[in-house]
């Protein structure tokens, strides 16, 4: 799952390059430029992917070790 999370991050970076909306000035809902809406979606997507990262890719070993060493040292 950890690898899936990192793949999702790469996917976000690729999707961020929305070259397909370069010339498109459609107003979604009558007010929201489509490219802005897409990029806003990227921001929401980033929040979701990072949420998954905190569940599946959290560096628990590193944290535990830091905790132990600092407790030992203090």
């Amino acid at each position, binding site marked *: 799952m950890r690898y899936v999370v990192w793949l999702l991050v790469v996917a976000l970076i690729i999707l961020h390059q929305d070259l397909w909306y370069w*010339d498109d000035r459609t107003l979604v809902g009558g007010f929201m*430029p489509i490219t802005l809406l897409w*990029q*806003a979606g990227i*921001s929401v997507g980033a929040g979701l992917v990072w949420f998954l990262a905190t569940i599946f890719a959290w560096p628990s*070993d590193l944290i535990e070790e*830091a905790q132990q060493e*600092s407790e030992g040292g203090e």
Partner: protein
Amino acid sequence: MVPLIVICVYLVLLLALGIFASMLFRGSSKDYMLASHSIGPFLLLMSLFGTTMTAFALVGSTGEAYAEGVGVYGLLASSSGIIHSLCFFVLGIKLWSLGKKYGYTTQIQFFRDRLQSDKIGILLFPILVGLVIPYLLIGVMASGTVVSAVSEGAFTNMFAEYDYGVPNWLGSLVISIVVLIYVFFGGMRGTAWANAFQTIVFMILGIITFWVISDNLGGVQAASEAVEKRNPSKLMRSVAESDEQKYEKAFATWQSLAEYNYANKKANGELLTPEQKEKAIADYKGPPIGNWKARAEANFAVASNLIDLSIAEKNDAYIEQDDRIMPKEKPQWWDKEVMTGHELNEYQRNEDAVLAAYTDPIYNKNMGHPNDLINPDKPELGTKWTRKRTAGVYRATKWSPEEPRAMSMLVFITYMFIPLSVGMFPHLFQHWLTAKNAQSFKLPVVAHPLFIAIVWIPCVLVGVWATSAVVPGTERALIPPHFNPNAVLPFMVANMSGPFLSGLLTAGVLAAIMSSLDSQFLCIGTMFTEDIVVHYGGKKRFTDKQVLIIARCFIIAIVAVTYILSLYEPRRVFTLGVWTFSGFSSLFPLVFAALYWKRLTKAGAYACVITAISLWCLFFYMSDMALNPHFTVFGMMPVATMVPAAAVAMIVVSLMTQPPSEEHLERFFPKKSSS
């Protein structure tokens, strides 16, 4: 005066918060600099977010969206949502754990230890402080602009040369002093609290600003439809055909004005007879503002074929009319081809030429206190013009029309390198170390991209809407051409809300600015004491109290330097911000390699830093010290060359030099337990 009072009340509240936080101060330098590692998830999120969102996010994004369109969000906001959290995740947690293990307070302490090099601190210290200064400059400069714009007409007899409002220099000074005071007394704890408070303030007030402005523009739909009608290019990243045609037409009209003025000057002002001038003015149908009589005469002269200029003279005429600097050596095509608008824009403009408007009766006849009527007998003529408006009329009537610009795909893609700067911001490093535990990072990592969206989307929309807003009941643009992008947000706020709300919303903008300034002030003080004074003077030489005094004195010195710099030539907030971020981004390979690449050597690190900063200085110089906002290298953002070059230099030199000992690496790359 009301907005000014509201702002003053806000600043007093902020000071009270700082003083309250200082009551919790434990008196030690560790508490002052790192809040004794006691910051939990919510305060960490607010302080990290408040610190990264500065004038750049509010004033800069609105101004840049006004100038370049909605693509600005993709350029920096959404990419930051991905990359900032990536940096918190990949670098922040690891640096926090090492900081906890080995007691680091600053980045330089980490690099000295990791690279076993004392001198790396000597190299990095001036570079990091040098890059923080333009970052501080953005905030200091923008705060002065915002306060000045919102306080126009607040005084009756004072500050006439600042439109009877608070001068920029005074606004910047007051904001710097307020931030200094609460950083002084509250230290990191005060900063974190003030950041949380200010982040909440600017997010809530930002949403209210958005709602009020959109309501005044007739609702979100009407505001966006106006852009679709008047400036469709602002809704995408290429140029709409209608905008291109509109520009070509406006440029041709402007060319005839320039040619007329040049020919008339050649004929000692007698190109038209007095009768012809009278007829020209009688026939004129445009708005009678600024230099409209010259436009009327130009129309007449063109229609009557009275202008006879060579191609070289026409080119001279355009340069002169547009207040651009005449080249010492003219190119070969000068007397063979008439220059295009694009070619004209390549020549640097003398921005000081606008000062002529203040003494020229053609432009300054209506100038005065903005609350007084131009003519009490004719109130429909409106109130007197501010100096900013006079200068605006000068630019709008004299200078060539603004060329619609498409965003370059390569520039868009390579902007992705800019948010990497977060990995090397010294003030963020310090904030990471304040975390109570690693769990505290979870909330900032997840919420940061969403918070960016909440702040940036309204700002970008307001900036884009500002391009097409009109004076109620007319078709006249609310904001004249060549308007200073830095002033778009305060202008919209001042024009679209009542005085009380205007003051409140300005306080929100100032909150965003101050929430970054405080961390930066604190961080440079910490770096100076820890990395220079204590490191070279010895821990036993100074008491904890002396260390605090030294930190505070250095902060004052840096703020003074920044303040003095802010009094000089202003730059576009966005452009200056991008240069600062590019400098930090170019050092990203160093911090990444220090954490993840065992083979990194001291020499490799030096190569990385020297390459990064040399290229930064070179490109910054080539961009006319940030005066050229569209400067690129190989058609890409300069940072796209700087980051790979620094990385390559680091890798090559590291591989050519002796690797660090296994024993030393063990401290930073401990073997994972088999369980």
